[in-house]
């Protein structure tokens, strides 16, 4: 297998792009990535998207994106794994280059959540849940997250306020990111007073669905050095799955897929957790951030929230997370989110993070989690 590196990145601002369609956002991110890499073509295009068919009435998205990105004729296909679509597409891209199937591939995530509003969007979004066992009951992703969160609070004796550190950190970082959707700060104490979506999950807890597109260009590590001054190597990857229905988990408060994907990625990268300088995790809800830190081995069981409360996750702390705002503040362009994580990690490792720069960032972990841990893709990136 050949070593793989990222040689180009592109992203659109995350938000509500009423005037732009899926194709426009995708073309914008693709052009930026090609320009950044200094190339004008690739051998293949992998598109990550979660709700094109249900929210934007568009499936068979890959050739459409290829056409509008100026890549008509290229090999292309789309990957769907709900919130983990981006991580899944990145893994497919790494495999394509590592195996020798192609030398250069563009991995692009795109979502257009604002093509629907209100209860129609909520309905369209429930297609990623277990239709027969959970969605039919009127379950939504925030409601299922709420079931997890309340159980966590009861089993570990944790108050609602214990989770606020995740949202405060995300918005403190997102406030400095020009591409973030919500750049407001969240004051201490405001979290507990926010309107409830499905208690205890509130408006200041769940990440906002958004529009956006992001892209990375992969090639072999060998070629990368000749093409760009600062290639970022993908030194490890791991992937795993868990039940789609929450009720089917034998250990409700343990994300097994996250655990397994992290272990695999660390093993393949041959690094220890202490060497990781920053993490982009899937903070769709604060409970998912806490459980991900626990399953990934950065916090003991039942104590993931402590990292947010004791100031361990800020930009200048021991383990910075959500360094450009995470899903909560940058926004959650669902299928594109995993690619935004990759773009943000590359910026950090290039030392191009601007006001969001983590000092001396050498190794980053990005973790793309679908639903509440039904799929997980973890990648380790290095300078």
């Amino acid at each position, binding site marked *: 297998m050949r070593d793989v590196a990222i040689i180009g990145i592109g992203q659109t601002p995350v938000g509500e792009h009423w005037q732009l369609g899926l194709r426009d956002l995708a073309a914008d991110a693709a052009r930026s990535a090609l320009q950044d890499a200094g190339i004008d073509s690739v051998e293949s295009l992998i598109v990550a998207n979660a709700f094109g068919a249900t929210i934007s009435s568009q499936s068979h998205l890959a050739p459409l994106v290829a056409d509008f990105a100026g890549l008509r004729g290229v090999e292309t296909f789309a990957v769907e794994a709900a919130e983990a679509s981006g991580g899944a597409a990145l893994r497919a891209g790494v495999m394509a280059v590592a195996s020798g199937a192609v030398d250069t591939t563009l991995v692009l995530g795109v979502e257009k959540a604002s093509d629907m509003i209100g209860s129609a969007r909520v309905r369209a979004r429930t297609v990623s849940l277990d239709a027969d066992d959970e969605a*039919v009951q009127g379950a*939504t992703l925030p409601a299922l997250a*709420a*079931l997890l969160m309340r159980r966590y609070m009861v089993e570990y004796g944790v108050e609602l306020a214990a989770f606020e550190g995740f949202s405060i950190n995300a918005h403190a970082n997102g406030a400095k990111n020009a591409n973030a959707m919500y750049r407001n700060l969240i004051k201490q104490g405001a979290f507990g007073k926010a309107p409830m979506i*499905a208690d205890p999950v509130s408006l200041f807890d769940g990440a906002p669905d958004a529009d956006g597109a992001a892209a990375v260009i992969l090639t072999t590590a060998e070629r990368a050095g000749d093409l760009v001054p600062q290639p970022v190597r993908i030194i490890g990857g791991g992937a795993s799955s868990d*039940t789609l229905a929450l009720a089917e988990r034998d250990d409700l408060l343990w994300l097994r897929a996250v655990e397994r994907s992290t272990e695999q990625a660390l093993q393949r990268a041959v690094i220890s957790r202490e060497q990781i300088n920053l993490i982009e995790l899937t903070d769709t809800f604060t409970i998912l951030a806490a459980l991900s830190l626990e399953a990934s081995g950065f916090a003991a069981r039942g104590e993931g929230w402590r990292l947010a409360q004791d100031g361990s996750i800020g930009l200048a702390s021991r383990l910075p997370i959500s360094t450009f705002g995470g899903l909560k503040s940058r926004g959650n362009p669902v299928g594109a989110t995993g690619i935004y994580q990759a773009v943000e990690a590359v910026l950090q490792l290039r030392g191009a993070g601007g006001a969001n720069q983590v000092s001396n960032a050498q190794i980053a972990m990005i973790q793309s989690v679908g639903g509440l841990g039904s799929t997980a893709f973890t990648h380790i990136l290095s300078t």
Partner: protein
Amino acid sequence: MSENHRPAAPPHERQAFAGTGEIISFTTVREAPEGYEDQVPYVLALVRLDEGQMVTAQITDLDGPPAIGDRVEMVTRKLTTEGPRGMIVYGYKFRRPVT
């Protein structure tokens, strides 16, 4: 087969349940999908059946807030109607036992 791919749980089997259990977590849904808006706010819960299996289901017929540990029993109810001319979907919900 590698360690990573060993099945973590027994395969799904059909089982019969008495239909009784207890609430182990719950939430009140305030942003509902199309087809469920007329039920807002409704209570969704994880119920641990007495046989050990967990199910996600609505708690119905409530005359006060639910609590973790509440005993519940299964009832058949309308879950949703797929539009004015669409199918009516029936299924299970749970309620506190009627004495």
